[in-house]
């Protein structure tokens, strides 16, 4: 059984293209499977188009989940990126 881990965060800005890209680049560096859930939609965090397709907006609660050997580190890295999403567009 691979380790799995998850954490929630509330977005302080909309998840535009650049933060979605940063999220997917970071997720792709981990061996674990990583997903981001916004409402009823879940995307593979390693897929930039999937993350953008969530259409996640300011005030929304997101859940980052990871399963695999570096699950805890993956969740921490992605939560950190999502914590830096601000109201400034991009």
């Amino acid at each position, binding site marked *: 059984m691979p380790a799995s881990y998850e954490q929630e965060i509330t977005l302080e800005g909309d998840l535009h293209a650049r933060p979605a890209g940063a999220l997917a680049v970071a997720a792709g560096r981990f061996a674990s499977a990583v997903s981001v859930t916004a409402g009823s939609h879940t995307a593979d965090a390693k897929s*930039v188009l999937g993350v953008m397709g969530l259409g996640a907006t300011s005030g929304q609660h997101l859940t980052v989940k990871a399963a695999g050997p570096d699950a805890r580190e993956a969740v921490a890295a992605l939560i950190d990126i999502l914590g830096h999403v601000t109201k400034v567009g991009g």
Partner: protein
Amino acid sequence: MSRATVGIVLVSHSAELAQGAAHLAGQVSGGTVTIIAAGGTDEGDLGTSAAKVSRGLSQADSGAGVVVLPDLGSAVLTVRAVLEDHGDATSVLLADAPFVEGAVAATVAAASGGDVKAVAAAAEEARHARKL
């Protein structure tokens, strides 16, 4: 990440379209990937240029290989002609993908350290990504 990243060549009939897609993909992926825009003819008209594609392949390859994205079907003819002369078919992959989405997905995959097959696969998966 000490090893080389996969390079991207965007082949469009329009120089502006190739440059714009390269700019966008570079911004979204954080600017760590070499993306070469090979758009328009040698005369600057709409069309494709074997010379530009060939130069693009050389400029984009830092040792990890290159993924090429054509905008429309007829750009494929130009790319294939260049690849026949290029020789190393395993290090250059032509991706069958939507141009903008494929460019962004491929560049992000390259930025996260994906190999040439993973980068081409990311581009091709863009076909199934929904915007709405």
